[in-house]
């Protein structure tokens, strides 16, 4: 029926979005970025027992220029905030962030003077993985949820408007009532 009957064998029709998203989600390159104890579980996720390569992530990149997923594994100290933001800005679009563990998501047990109470005050977070530390299965589950999120994106809509877009609020299609702070501590508009 229809157009598909008329085209020769071996040719399939799909949308550009589905095609691009399929390619993107099957080759996400994470940035090797362990900050604390959660990083141990992240390493375990990559290693043979849990083997993140099954989901298209063969290798952690050591350079933000070659990465498009930042897994924030651990607590972010105030001194680390400018570094983290800079690494994020250096990653090419499209890029995603997974906040791994209680500390990265909300400060966790470190509710004190030295630790940022949630990495979402610095970079826009796509997936929060709870736990202290999350087990590798949980991280893999978070990654699979990120894949579902990638599937819904569109090439027509820029994921992040500018390299210096500061906030989650600026991302289309997302609602957030909270103002965010940039690395120097000023409130973003």
């Amino acid at each position, binding site marked *: 029926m229809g157009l598909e009957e008329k085209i020769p064998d071996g040719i399939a029709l799909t949308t550009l979005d589905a095609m691009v998203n399929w390619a993107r989600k099957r080759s996400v390159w994470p940035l090797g970025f362990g900050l604390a104890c959660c990083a141990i579980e992240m390493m375990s996720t990559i290693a043979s027992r849990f083997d993140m390569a099954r989901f298209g992530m063969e290798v952690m990149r050591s350079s933000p220029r070659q990465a498009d997923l930042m897994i924030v594994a651990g607590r972010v100290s105030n001194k680390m905030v400018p570094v983290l933001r800079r690494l994020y800005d250096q990653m090419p679009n499209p890029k995603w962030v997974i906040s791994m563990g209680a500390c990265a998501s909300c400060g966790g047990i470190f509710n004190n*003077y030295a630790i940022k109470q949630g990495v979402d005050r610095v970079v826009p977070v796509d997936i929060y993985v709870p736990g202290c530390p999350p087990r590798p299965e949980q991280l893999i589950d978070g990654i699979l949820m990120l894949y579902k999120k990638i599937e819904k994106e569109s090439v027509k809509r820029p994921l992040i408007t500018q390299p210096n877009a500061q906030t989650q609020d600026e991302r289309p299609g997302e609602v957030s009532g909270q103002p965010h702070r940039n690395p120097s501590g000023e409130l973003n508009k």
Partner: protein
Amino acid sequence: MNLSIDASFMEQSITDFLNNKFPGKVLGDYTYRGQFSLYVTADALYEIALALKEEAALSFDFLVDICSVDHLGKAWESEGRYEIVYTLLSLEHTYRFMLRVKIADHTVAPQSLCDIWHSANWLEREVWDMMGIEFKKHPNLTKIVTDDDLEGHPLRKDFGLVYEEPQFSHNHDEVLITPDNPNH
């Protein structure tokens, strides 16, 4: 090198040496689980440290660490609010012990030991950063551990927890992150 040096012999020789050379400056000793320490007065600390390094029979050539204690609110606070603990090591005699100094206030700190052991430079900066003890004649007493925006010295017992109220759905509006609530 004499590896089988007797700890009690070393304790005795340090005490005798300091008592002879600096009478009245050694305030007492303290042993906890075999760790020997001597309390000395803050004004004589520099000379004592220098003598301990230069005396051939002792030769404490390595300053391992400097710690500080805040005795605020303790029964013995009147003896001096802060205590500074210098861990010395003699590589030649493989013997370590601690020099302890009690000071009433952070402004009456002992002189910096940077000229004697270079390791004192960063260690004293750390003690100053975390506890606010102002070592005299330190070449560069600036922040080393905490971030630049932080004011105060976090390990002091009166620093406060800087606790930030977590935001849940039930207190979302009370804990709103606003410019008036800049603790974020």
